[in-house]
């Protein structure tokens, strides 16, 4: 069973690719830089003897074509799942950013993923058992002055996944969504995180173990469920004073 990993070049995407390849699943790895996915594909093929094909696609661009991915999938066993750990953030992501920057963040974190799901949904519906896994962020819990477009896009993605799960409730397609806290990736490197960072490879193991479970939404690490509940419940008079 083949899996498509979007955002598969580093961090969580790389960890997911390694875990699923280790289990023998052929993969198509999608990222904006072929150098990264080509290196990862080569490594996974050598270590696990499983077919892994890298494809370049820049999720930030408004016009997306999936021909290269379709071509890669054509030579592999049937598509069984989409793993979507892709995410892009910028340090200058605030409400007054440029329109181009805003569009790029929205495309990469939401629009492109929605379009990709729409493109491959017919194929997944026809599979005996299929899986779509999305990844959001605790940053989307509540709008802040920082990461404005990123947080909004991730919140939109979470809502979209709720709709997707509802729409596919009587199908063979399982829809899962992970709301992620701090992960030990380049994104968090250098940040002074108030709470511990989680290891991507441990999350990848959890994702793989729970891939057959119909749980809807899960927080990782789990303590973020409580943290986010508190953040949502804070009165505006308190929240407006927070800087994080």
């Amino acid at each position, binding site marked *: 069973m083949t899996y498509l990993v979007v955002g598969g070049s580093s961090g969580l995407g790389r960890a997911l690719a390694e875990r699923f390849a280790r289990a023998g699943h052929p993969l198509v790895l999608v990222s904006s830089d072929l150098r990264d996915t080509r290196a990862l594909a080569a490594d996974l093929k*050598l270590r696990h003897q499983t077919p892994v094909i890298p494809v370049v696609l820049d999720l930030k661009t408004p016009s997306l074509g999936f021909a290269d991915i379709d071509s890669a999938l054509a030579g592999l066993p049937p598509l069984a799942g989409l793993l979507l750990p892709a995410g892009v953030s910028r340090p*200058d992501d605030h409400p007054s950013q440029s329109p181009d920057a805003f569009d790029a963040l929205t495309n990469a974190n939401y629009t492109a993923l929605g379009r990709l799901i729409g493109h491959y949904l017919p194929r997944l519906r026809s599979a005996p058992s299929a899986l779509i896994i999305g990844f959001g962020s605790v940053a989307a819990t509540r709008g802040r002055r920082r990461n404005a477009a990123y947080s909004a896009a991730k919140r939109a993605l979470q809502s979209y996944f709720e709709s997707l799960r509802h729409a596919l409730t009587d199908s063979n397609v399982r829809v899962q969504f992970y709301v992620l806290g701090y992960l030990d990736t380049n994104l968090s*490197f250098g*940040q002074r995180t108030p709470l511990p960072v989680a290891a991507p490879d441990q999350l990848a193991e959890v994702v793989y173990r729970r891939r057959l479970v119909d749980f809807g939404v899960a927080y990782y690490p789990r303590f973020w469920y409580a943290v986010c509940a508190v953040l949502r419940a804070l009165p505006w008079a308190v929240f407006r004073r927070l800087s994080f």
Partner: protein
Amino acid sequence: MRRSDVDAAVLRQSRFVTFDGSLALSTDHQRPDRYRHLEVDLGARKRIARGAGLSYAAASFGAGVVVQEMTAFNRLLAFDDQNHTIKVEGGITLERLLAWAEPRGLYCAVLPGYPLITVGGCIAADAHGKNPARDGTFCDWVEAMTLFHPRRGFQSITRTSHPELFGTTCGGFGMTGVIVDATLRLSPLLTRNVRVRSIATESLAECAGRLQQESAADFAYSWHDGAARGPAFGRGVLLLGNWTEDAADEATGAYAPMSSDQRGRWPISLWNRLTVRSANALFRRMAVHRPSQVKTAFDAAFPFARQTLYHRFYGRRGLAEAQILVPDAAVPAFIAELSALVHMVDPPLVMMSLKLFQGRQHSLSMSGRGTLFALDLVRCEATRRFLDALDRVVVSTGAQPNIAKDSRLGADTATRALPFHAQFRARLMQLDPDRLYQSELSQRLGL
């Protein structure tokens, strides 16, 4: 998180410490995990690549230097089944490489002493294994590399296509740029275990002579009692290993990796006259009592991986190691002067070790044939006096120090003792005229 512009490097302040515990400092730390991160413009900032950070000397960090940790670049890239060459990213550890190679009946002929050392680190220091006289050094087994330097971008090089750059990078301690990947020639692995024979010797001279006779062994090195004085000075055990089909004597499980930081966690050093004398006596007794044992290839190649107490015992104060290549003709004189110096200064010498050596690189790594002497001492004022005096013996006997081991070696001794120091410096000024790639080691050695 600090970024100077949108696509700039993600940096944080991290603390780095040498394995020997001599130097610790905080500086900017970059941890690239994509190829475009390597291309981020750091301007005129000094920077240096870092692998596992297990060098005794500060070869992968320095004050005001951006440390570019390459551990995410740890993938296998291509395998040539005909020629038995494997292309790997520079941040791959020897352990990870061997985990792939051994089941395929392949091995690295040259393995330095710890499994987490990276391939890039091995090339940068031109590391050696358990029988350098026979197998050479790590760079002898490197066929090609990809280097990154902001001036030249990503550059694929071989010994024939770019002889000067290739030769300067081998044993160049990262000063020519980032070793992004390397193509290594692997050796057939005929068996999985090594039979190690222990032969008691009574002096450094005797052991050096025996090593010459046993130079064909797959593993050949010695251990000597650092506490012994008088006629007993230099007594030790010659350890000779050969690949064997026999089963390993002991089943061994996973080991607990140890970083430079973890090595120095204990607040005090537990090596003193009593413990050094006792430990050495115990080691010799055990070696003599069990003159032959079968170890796994892992344990034979990495004897300290499961025995971390030896290095932890040095505590936060740390250790000082001097590793010195003595030309064959000078070995008797060197041993005589070493013995005299030890007896005069009486430094806290814990152990010594010998190997026969052959290095072919013409950079900062040891070059030529001879006997490699390693001395481990507790770091203190007496040790400093001893090593300063030993520098004079090194120069007078035409010996060469291993700059990866001696974290206090100065420019004066390096200039006089390293045969290719001047040529290396001249080549480096052409290859990296802005001297972007620097470390505390390079700065201390006047590079």
